[in-house]
């Protein structure tokens, strides 16, 4: 049942091309475009500030593109379309007369996870390409002194951290969509909450008290920095948040998802 629902969600997403582009395709293009502009401006106008390129550090950094609130806007819009679309188009009565509620909602979550994973990986690839362009312009590159296994693991950790962070946001969007039955409410509430969290967590950026790991942005950063350390990065103040951060992200995701699913299974769809 859940695979049938997942197939449907991915099919709908593939056919809703314009929305899917803005939600999941725009950020990688933006990362590529803005990176190239930055490189050409730096090299042609300012001169080489940093006399070497680091394409693999760039690709690792690219995995964090969707971790900040403003850049999560696209993913939030994508989540709102997936979770709030059925309310907006009043299509629950077409879908829930064919499949069960929980598999349908979980399939939406899975479809979002797949789409956002592609987006995160493409962001990383875009930054890697920018790094290569930087290398060709600078004429010099630095590569991590660690082995390929550590590089791959660092990337995997960073990818997982960003994915987990965005999935917490998606589960929150799902909850707001179920509560409000409105796509716009899900976007606005999620974005404002993320911005508020980022502002509130500024003091936690220096690390220290692990209670800051409850903030999803710091939790994600902590996990990513533990990966960056594997590639020789030294400026990793938050890497101590990695473990409690992972726990916090799982907790937030589980809490939002469970509440949303419980409410959804009990919800009267008298209009939709």
């Amino acid at each position, binding site marked *: 049942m859940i695979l049938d629902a997942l197939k449907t969600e991915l099919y709908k997403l593939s056919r809703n091309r314009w929305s899917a582009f803005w939600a999941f395709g725009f950020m990688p293009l933006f990362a590529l475009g803005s990176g190239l502009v930055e490189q050409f401006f730096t090299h042609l106008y300012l001169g080489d500030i940093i006399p070497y390129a680091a394409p693999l550090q760039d690709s690792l950094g690219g995995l964090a593109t969707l971790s900040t609130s403003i850049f999560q806007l696209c993913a939030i819009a994508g989540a709102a379309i997936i979770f709030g679309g059925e309310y907006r*188009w009043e299509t629950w009565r077409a879908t829930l007369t064919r499949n069960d509620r929980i598999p349908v909602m979980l399939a939406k979550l899975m479809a979002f996870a797949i789409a956002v994973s592609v987006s995160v990986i493409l962001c990383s690839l875009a930054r890697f390409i920018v790094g290569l362009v930087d290398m060709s312009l600078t004429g010099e590159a630095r590569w991590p002194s660690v082995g390929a296994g550590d590089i791959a693991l660092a990337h995997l950790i960073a990818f997982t951290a960003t994915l987990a962070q965005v999935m917490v946001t998606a589960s929150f969007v799902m909850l707001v969509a179920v509560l409000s039955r409105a796509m716009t409410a899900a976007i606005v509430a999620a974005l404002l909450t993320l911005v508020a969290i980022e502002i509130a967590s500024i003091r936690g950026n220096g690390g220290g008290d692990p209670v800051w790991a409850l903030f999803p942005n710091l939790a994600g950063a902590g996990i990513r920095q533990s990966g960056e350390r594997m590639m020789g990065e030294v400026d990793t103040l938050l890497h101590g948040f990695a473990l409690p951060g992972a726990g916090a992200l799982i907790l937030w995701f589980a809490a939002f998802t469970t509440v949303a699913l419980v409410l959804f299974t009990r919800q009267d769809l008298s209009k939709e």
Partner: protein
Amino acid sequence: MTAALETFGLGKSYGRGGRAVSALGALDLSVPKGLVYGVLGPNGAGKSTLLRLVLGLVKPSRGGFRLLGESSIDARVLRRIGAMIEAPSLYPFLTARETLRALAHLSGLNDPAREEAVLERVGLSEAAHRRVRTYSMGMKQRLALGAALLARPELLILDEPTNGLDPPGIQEMRVLVRELVEKEGVTIILSSHLLDEVQKVCDRVAIINRGELVSEGRVSDLISGQGGFFIRAAPREKALAILGARARPQDDGLVVDIPPDAAPALIRELVGANIDVFEARWLTQSLERVFLSSMDQSQ
């Protein structure tokens, strides 16, 4: 034989405490398999609420039901049912062909030939490549019907299926509904406020008002015998004098309230009194009159 749908005191209220509004009282209904069952009622009577309840879209406040013999409604049961509830609900960014493909996936189907056959059946083959947002209401209604037919359902639940259809479309819908029942053995539960359509297409009806069942039975039983026995005879005054209080003038004749088996004796009585009988026939009651009469009685 198991009924297609049985409800036991099924009811739904919205809100709580003193502000609760009852959308459906406590409905006891049994819909036999293999026929077209009409659910009639004015706006707000509870027709759509009943259909949403049995499809699991809203949760009952009281009572229960069995659908196709099952009291627990999950995807296993839902996949034996096709449903079209209220206005067509479709994804505006999909074409008709894509809509059927998406809903087929959701039902666990993988039969593109069936999708094409359904498009053909509902007359949308030519427009199948167009996005739904460009469709007229009637085209959306046809597509929603096609989606309901996709999984070859045993039971089809249609809520106001002729809304938005033009007269030829209504005629096609009527033919399709009868074909599905008579040739494919599908059971159809159909709600409508178009009483003439219901009379033409349904075998049995339930009339609901303010969430309560006010009348139920075979359409032929509900409309027969209740219209009176019409006689055109001359001289009319003499006939009226013989029939007395049993008769009342109507148009150029008389309408007599008698049971069906009393008609031959009545005609013999008039002929025996040297009255010329030009016409004698049973007036059939229209479903509309039955409906309005039921509404009056339930007020």
